Structure formats: structure tokens, C-alpha cells
């Protein structure tokens, strides 16, 4: 049973930093899309070394639209 986990930091200005765990391939992209719908456009993306392992870990910064 896979574990899905999000580490979310909401900055004092409302920008969101997201750490995604437990999504593979398209599943990860869908998870990111879901966050875009909730809080806004992606400002930057950083794939950690774990991204290329079977279980993905990806960091995203999501910025509110001005």
C-alpha cells in the first residue's frame, strides 16, 4: 500500500514550497497539477536525486499569481 506524502511550507507572503513523496511518473505530475489548481503557478522546480529512484521525491515552489 503506497504512502503519499506532501511536505508543505506556506511562506508569510503566501508562497508555497512543496515536497512530494511517494508518487511515480505521471502520478507525480498529476499531484503537482493538483497543487497548481489549488494555489497557483509553479515558480521553480528542483528534482532531487530521489526523483530518479522508484519512489519520487520532488521539490516545487509555487508562487501566487500577481
Amino acid at each position, binding site marked *: 500500500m*503506497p504512502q*503519499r506524502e506532501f511536505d508543505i511550507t506556506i511562506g508569510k507572503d*503566501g508562497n*508555497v514550497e512543496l515536497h512530494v513523496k511517494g508518487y511515480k511518473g505521471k502520478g507525480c505530475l498529476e499531484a503537482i497539477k493538483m497543487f497548481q489548481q489549488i494555489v497557483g503557478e509553479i515558480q521553480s522546480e528542483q528534482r532531487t536525486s530521489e526523483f530518479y529512484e522508484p519512489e519520487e521525491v520532488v521539490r516545487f515552489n509555487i508562487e*501566487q*499569481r500577481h
Partner: protein
Amino acid sequence: MTPVVIAAWPAFSAAVVAAATSLGYQVAAEATNLKKSAIATQNAAGKIQMEIENSEVMTNQLGRDQRIAVTKGGVTITFSRDARGKASLCVTGEGHDKEELKALGQELSQAVVQQYVYQKLMDEMRARGFNVIEEETNADRSIHLKVRRWDN
């Protein structure tokens, strides 16, 4: 005191109330008939009008004739939606210069956006079956959440 009517625009006003109370403000009034008293205050005091950065995420929640005012230490901050649909705020306060008023407005408007995003994320995460397993407010006033779900 003017009755507080939150049901008409719940998400935005909830964010305003949460952010304002966390910074020591009190809700002064919320209604469509706030205009007259707000204008009277503005004429007698320093005043600054600002847009809320990043407000597009929440403008749909705010009707054009709806306002909410919060006060602290003689400063009144009134939130409304401008003609272009962007949320804005008016900061008034006697004995405060424009820079002070601007700083207070920016501090509160950022906190409102943060609270709005927090509430929206919590609602959406719970709706998708995630449980909040960690939640803390850091010294820099950022909010950290860890949510988890086990899939079949």
C-alpha cells in the same frame, strides 16, 4: 457593534479574520453599509490605499460591494474588491505617517493571503483523503504542514 456577516463571503473573510486576529487586530465591521463610516474616518486621518499582492487566488470570493474592517491601536484597515476585481485595502490612522500605514497594510495583506492559502490547502487535502500529521508555525511566521495518505 455592526453585526458580522461572514456567511456571504466565507473564505475571504475567514482569512481576513484569522490573519487579523493573529496580528492583534479586532474585526470592526463587515457589511455593505460600511462605506459611510469608513469614508468619515478616512477624511479625518492619514490614509493609504493598496492592492493586495497575490489576491487573484481569492477574488472570486469577494463581492464588489462587500467590505470588512479591522482595527488596532487607532489604525483601521478596510478590505474590499476594486472595480477590476482585485482585492484591495485602505489603511487609515491618525498620528501614523504613510510609510507606517503602508507597512501595516503589507503585513496584514500578506497574512491574509497566507491564511487563505492555508485554509484552501487544508480543505482540499482533507477532501482528497489526506490526514494532517504535522502542523507548526515557524519563527519566520511560515506555516509547515505534513499531510499523508495511504493508497490501495
